[in-house]
């Protein structure tokens, strides 16, 4: 399907052949918001990576002689109730936020694609059983389950990432299943089967690659959702443990210092908003670029 599409495009434009990836790239960079989102996210990634070089302060070492300092040249965003530099903590928080968003969504994608592909390909009882399971899990508000879980077990950054991933695959599984259900009746699958392709080859080599677009778009939106979820869980005090600075953790308790240090509340929330906005713009651009009807 992908290749036919690329070739008709080439017939319409006799210009040098650009191939499928080139076509997607062209459409993506023509999407202004997506480019803005990419640049913004790229900045966050750079800031996160070079945090230790950009700031002379420790994100976690308290400085009790410097509590709640107002913004100054030394501390552009002031310090928190323990005297830690807010800007430094924001930079290090970007690491956690991005890591949580990307890694947990990767876990979701793996589970969602496997479950969706198996259900869509085999159909019948397998499909019924898997989709009933998805229905059942969708009947719970994920945030309730996550909060109860994290109130009970020993939390860590890895645990938060793992469980956000384990709870986030349901929607993708449905999407992949739906696509594969219709794809498996196509002639190219019959042809591949006639050539002696095994079930595994059919799924992994012929079916799943044709769903790549939907998977990438859902993955991007998942990244945004998981970044927001981490923020909410940590804000409520049941996310990443306090010892790791995250944007959500920084907001936990910040409301007590509204009058003395409003930046404590404003800055981390603004960081989350901008990062999520960037990811959503990218997702939007990818959806438009990957949509064969676009």
């Amino acid at each position, binding site marked *: 399907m992908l290749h036919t599409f690329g070739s008709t495009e080439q017939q319409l434009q006799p210009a040098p052949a650009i191939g499928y990836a080139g076509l997607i790239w062209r459409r993506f960079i023509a999407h202004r918001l997506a480019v803005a989102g990419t640049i913004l996210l790229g900045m966050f990634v750079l800031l996160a990576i070079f945090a230790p070089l950009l700031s002379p302060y420790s994100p976690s070492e308290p400085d009790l002689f410097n509590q709640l300092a107002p913004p100054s040249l030394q501390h552009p965003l002031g310090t928190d109730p323990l005297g830690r530099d807010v800007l430094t903590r924001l930079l290090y928080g970007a690491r956690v936020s991005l890591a949580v968003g990307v890694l947990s969504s990767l876990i979701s994608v793996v589970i969602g694609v496997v479950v969706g592909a198996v259900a869509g390909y085999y159909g019948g009882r397998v499909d019924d059983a898997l989709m009933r399971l998805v229905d059942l899990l969708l*009947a*719970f508000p994920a945030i309730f389950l996550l909060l109860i879980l994290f109130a009970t077990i020993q939390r860590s950054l890895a645990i938060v990432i793992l469980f956000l991933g384990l709870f986030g695959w349901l929607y993708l599984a449905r999407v992949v299943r739906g696509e594969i259900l219709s794809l498996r009746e196509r002639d190219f699958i019959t042809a591949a089967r006639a050539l002696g392709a095994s079930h595994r080859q059919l799924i992994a080599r012929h079916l799943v690659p044709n769903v790549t677009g939907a998977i990438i778009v859902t993955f991007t939106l998942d990244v945004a959702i998981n970044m927001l979820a981490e923020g909410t869980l940590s804000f409520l005090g049941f996310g990443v443990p306090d010892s790791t600075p995250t944007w959500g953790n920084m907001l936990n308790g910040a409301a007590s210092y509204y009058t003395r240090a409003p930046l404590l509340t404003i800055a981390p929330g603004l960081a989350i908003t901008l990062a*999520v906005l960037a990811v*959503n713009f990218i997702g939007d651009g990818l959806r438009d670029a990957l949509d064969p009807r676009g």
Partner: protein
Amino acid sequence: MRSYFVRRVLGAIPLLIGISLVSFIFLHVMPGGPDALLARNSRMSAEQLAKVRRSLGLDQPLPVQYARWFTNILRGDFGLSFTQFRPVSQIIGERIPHTLRLVIPAIVLSIALALVAGIASAVWRYSLADHIISGLSFLGLAMPVFWFGLMLQLLFSVQLGWLPSADMTSGDGGLVASAKHLVMPVTTLAIGTVAGWSRYVRASTLEVFRQDFVRTARAKGLAERLVITRHALRNALIPFVTVVAMDIPFFLSGAVVTETIFSWPGLGRLFFDALRARDYPVLMGLLVYAAILIVVFNIIADLLYAWLDPRIKYR
């Protein structure tokens, strides 16, 4: 229609049993479940512990505990709260009116704003208004809801001093005072949904605008206003109704954050407090309650869809 309804409801029974099973397993098999909580309490002697476990039924095998818990739920009995030593159903019942006082205005506000914004941006597509509305929707979807609530508090309570930041019982209890207490929590609860819903209304209105019957209506010379109100919107809003019905239960999860920020004594705050105290019967009760709401509103959404759209055959 009636047989469709009956079948839909009967079909939900296995789902509801599954929900109860998952809730039970989720809360009992985890490390740090009710048993571990009791065992950690060092003030209790082994003898007392055994007695408490027996009285709570925790000494029975898990399947027996589940069977007992499930039959109790069917009678509306969710057990006793670990912290308040009162029936969970009673505690939840007390909180429902408070949550409804937030959720109902929030739903009405969300629907109204989403319709106005979504339709306006579809009708005047690519206009300045459309760009502003779309921009705000993107912002609304990207902002953490709790942070939006905090920003409202910071601006309207702390800086301007116009609105109370918490404690709905303060003030003289009059209409104006109550309304002032509602403004910020209701707006906070509505913000995320308004953003999502208005995008949805915009998309489905644009979808209908492309269809032949709209072109026909325009071709026969019908005034644009009538084309929109009589023909386009009536069809565009059918899917929106079902989206609203499906999203309504999630106002309850939104209430956890909103009620926590604004110290609103509803179900969300109850959940948060129970979480901190690890009051498992209350948590289980709320979890089951929320899941049932989701299932029920899913059925309502399906029925509404079948009822509103005559093209849908319900077999």
